[in-house]
């Protein structure tokens, strides 16, 4: 079993965010933390012992680093008090470069965190300002160095591409600078604007313009090439790592292993059931305060759903999926292979880099009708 804990609070809201996060007062955080503990307690009572053995914990957000390193340790202590942590378990916390001092990093490590994911996003100060991030280039690189020095086994950096005003050269510069600091893992996400985030409104008003599809695609291709040359394995659409530094927790999502999500809006996969908590922080806190579960809905998967998910999630990884679970005729696969969008090896089908860039279309084409 894997455990995800959602910490929905941020110190400030980023300009591109329409995700489940809030800027909130300390006392709200306190109430939320108590609700988390209550939910943890409830699940711990319901799950059988073998399901309470954890091979990874992921503290995501929001911004978990709005808590101090010591508070993170305390939170982890609560979790491991009710669940059993395997000896080689991966314990990740997402860190905003603007939040933590070296002491926080050290305290978190001492409390059991062994993987740090740093939300660098960019090393270009004007871009960081446009994104509404609270840190600058130097703070970002400093955070990565702290994480590396404090004893974490793996350090990852998140980067965005396809930013307003960005071109291939500036992305490459940004990559060079981050690689200098020596993270083990990189996540590279395309800026996706949706909903009513300030940046997407600015784009719709014509105040900010986004690079075109071809430009964004060129950036991705260039980044993949650069990271490969630097020795990073491209193991998932958006993820790259040095050998042995895969995010095992995230890989579990792609492999459809079981996971339990705690917190507002958290998702779980338990057996053949996907369930999700209410998005509302207040709703979540109130429900658990009344000793009720905050489950907002669930979905029972039949064999066809499971197969569809396996294709959809498996094709995001470099391992791909066994050819025989695809419905598509050999002709169709031949054609896509000929066009350089997928590769077939040892009875498995995986997407090429170009294929990954159009994975939505490709996956929709390869799913059973």
């Amino acid at each position, binding site marked *: 079993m894997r455990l995800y804990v959602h910490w929905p609070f941020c110190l400030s809201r980023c300009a591109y965010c329409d995700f*489940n996060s809030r800027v909130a007062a300390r006392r709200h955080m306190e109430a939320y933390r108590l609700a988390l503990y209550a939910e943890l307690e409830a699940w711990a009572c319901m799950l059988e012992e073998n399901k309470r053995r954890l091979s990874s914990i992921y503290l995501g957000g929001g911004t978990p680093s709005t808590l101090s390193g010591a508070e993170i340790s305390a939170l982890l202590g609560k979790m491991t008090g009710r669940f059993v942590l395997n000896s080689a378990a991966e314990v990740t916390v997402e860190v905003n470069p603007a939040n933590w001092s070296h002491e926080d990093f050290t305290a978190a490590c001492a409390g059991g965190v062994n993987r740090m994911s740093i939300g660098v996003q960019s090393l270009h100060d004007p871009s960081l300002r446009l994104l509404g991030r609270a840190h600058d280039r130097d703070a970002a690189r400093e955070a990565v160095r702290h994480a590396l020095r404090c004893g974490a086994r793996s350090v990852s950096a998140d980067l965005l591409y396809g930013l307003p005003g960005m071109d291939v050269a500036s992305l490459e510069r940004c990559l060079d600078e981050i690689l200098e600091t020596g993270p083990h893992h990189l996540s590279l996400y395309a800026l996706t604007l949706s909903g009513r985030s300030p940046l997407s409104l600015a784009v719709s008003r014509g105040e900010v313009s986004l690079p075109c599809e071809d430009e964004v695609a060129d950036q991705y291709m260039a980044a993949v090439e650069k990271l490969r040359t630097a020795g990073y394995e491209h193991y998932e*659409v958006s993820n790259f790592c040095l050998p042995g530094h895969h995010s095992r927790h995230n890989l579990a999502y792609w492999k459809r292993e079981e996971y339990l999500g705690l917190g507002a809006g958290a998702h779980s996969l338990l057996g053949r059931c996907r369930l999700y908590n209410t998005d509302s922080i207040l709703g979540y806190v109130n429900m658990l305060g009344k000793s009720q579960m905050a489950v907002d809905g669930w979905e029972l998967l039949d064999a066809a759903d499971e197969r569809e998910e396996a294709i959809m999630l498996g094709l995001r990884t470099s391992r791909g999926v066994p050819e025989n679970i695809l419905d598509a005729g050999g002709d169709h696969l031949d*054609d*896509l292979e000929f066009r350089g969008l997928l590769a077939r090896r040892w009875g498995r089908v995986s997407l090429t880099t170009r294929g990954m860039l*159009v994975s939505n279309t490709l996956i929709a084409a390869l799913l059973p009708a």
Partner: protein
Amino acid sequence: MERNNIRNFCIIAHIDHGKSTLADRFLEITHSVPWQKMADQYLDRMELERERGITIKAQAVRMQYSPGGEEEYRLNLIDTPGHVDFSYEVSRSLAACEGAVLLVDASQGVEAQTVGNAYLAVEAGLTVIPVVNKIDLPSADYEDTAMEISDLLGVDPAEVLAVSAKTGEGVERLLQEVIRRVPPPGGESGLPLRALVFDSIYDLYRGVVAFVRVIEGVVARGMRARFMATGTAADIDEVGYFSPDMISCDRLEAGEVGYIITGIKEVTRIKVGDTVTGREDAAAEPLPGYLEPKPMVFAGIYPVDSDDFTDLNDALDRLKLNDASLTFAKETSKALGFGFRCGFLGLLHMEIVQERLEREYGLGLVITAPNVVYEIEERGGDTAYVRNPSDMPDMGTVAEVREPYVQATILMPPDYMGGMLELVKERRGIFQDMVYLSGRRVEIRCRLPLAEIVVDFYDQLKSRSRGYASLDYEHAGFQPGNLVKLDILINGEPVDAFSSVVDRSRAYDYGRRITQRLRELIPRQLFDVPVQAAIGGRVVARETIKAKRKDVLAKCYGGDVTRKKKLLQKQKEGKKRMKMVGKVEIPQEAFISALRVTREETGK
């Protein structure tokens, strides 16, 4: 009832000039419909008609009316369809009347179709009662409209009545004028039966209900009858009239209007314009004016999902029960699979059929751009008709290609004359004549290839005249043209559904525009897709739809797979609205709008 107290009349009006509202007032004044049942525009029965505000199927209603509570009259109001596509049906409805109320909107003035139908009425020997409607509107211009009508018909402006069908003002007076001016029907009840079929509807349980006007003789229940044009023999099961619901009676005499039911289930065996006579005491000659319905506009109709083919077939069969002028034949398209080549009287007719198929039968359809029928004279001397551009034979074997022309009348305020003449010229029209009807209206007469009209002529006419110009036309035979077949190749494969027949001098330009248009309409695929236009194997235009480069979901927040699945589901739904042609996904809209929009651009 005394024949002298019968009046058979119809209302001639342009769309939206208030015909149905006026008919409603008639029904109210004559107490023909109980209050509870008085839905607005009672005569337009089909849901679609009510929604579009137009009358597709004619109806005939019998009303009892005694003006001032004295002598009682029987008024038969025969409704006429109000669109150019149905001019033959209009002419048959007129043949069932002695009088016509010519209704003109006081704020719009006379429109081309009104003129066309008014002349039809005059030619048919009807007494025309000109009426200006909507006098309650602030923008009403009664005097000018009355002058226009009097110019048109050569009547004294004082004879033009003024009404507001909406408020009811002047409507009683109009009914009285109908009684006063329209002559009672003639015809002898003692002669052998001759009854004109002017419309029919299909009843699920009783088969075809034919609307008839008895011209001579008597039609009675139990009679052994024959339809003279089709030769169909049938016994009259029921005779009756509409009031406005069906009310059966024993017989209809000369001069009367009503319906007959024979148990015949196929509308094709009882055709509009046919003459009913008795099998014993048969009339020697049928009534004049019968024509076979001749579809001039064709389009392919295909199910989006090929599994729906049988459903589409059933739906067309059922529509055909009610619509004798619809024709269809199975065809196979390489691009679209199995479907039907359907023939229509015109564009509106086509749209109505399409809407009914989608609405009443819930079918997802791909409809190709409409085309006309071509007459091909082969080198061997044989003549063939081509209803689908992709069937056009190799030009080497063809001596001549002829296309249908129409005789068109366009009516407009003089300000827009220049624009209209230009439009006629652009559309290969042959200008013939121009007449000033009054200071504010000019009439242009010209011949136009029907092919130019079926695409978007009407839209252009309206947009270049701010809606003031109107069009009427009648078919005027075939005429040779310098025509070529233009093929469209997508990803190297010809897509038959995009083939068209165009004038040679414009083929290059047309090919360039349609390929550009298709490049915009077809979404980027996983690979580069060339779009080419070719005449007889020679490529005249080429565009490339560049491959899609980026379409990826970045993050999966905290294992939220549900959201990802929803997005994927959306993508799959989108795929359903696409038609796979070879390896290329083409959206349904592309099949009709590619050819249509191309013309609009050419027009500018």
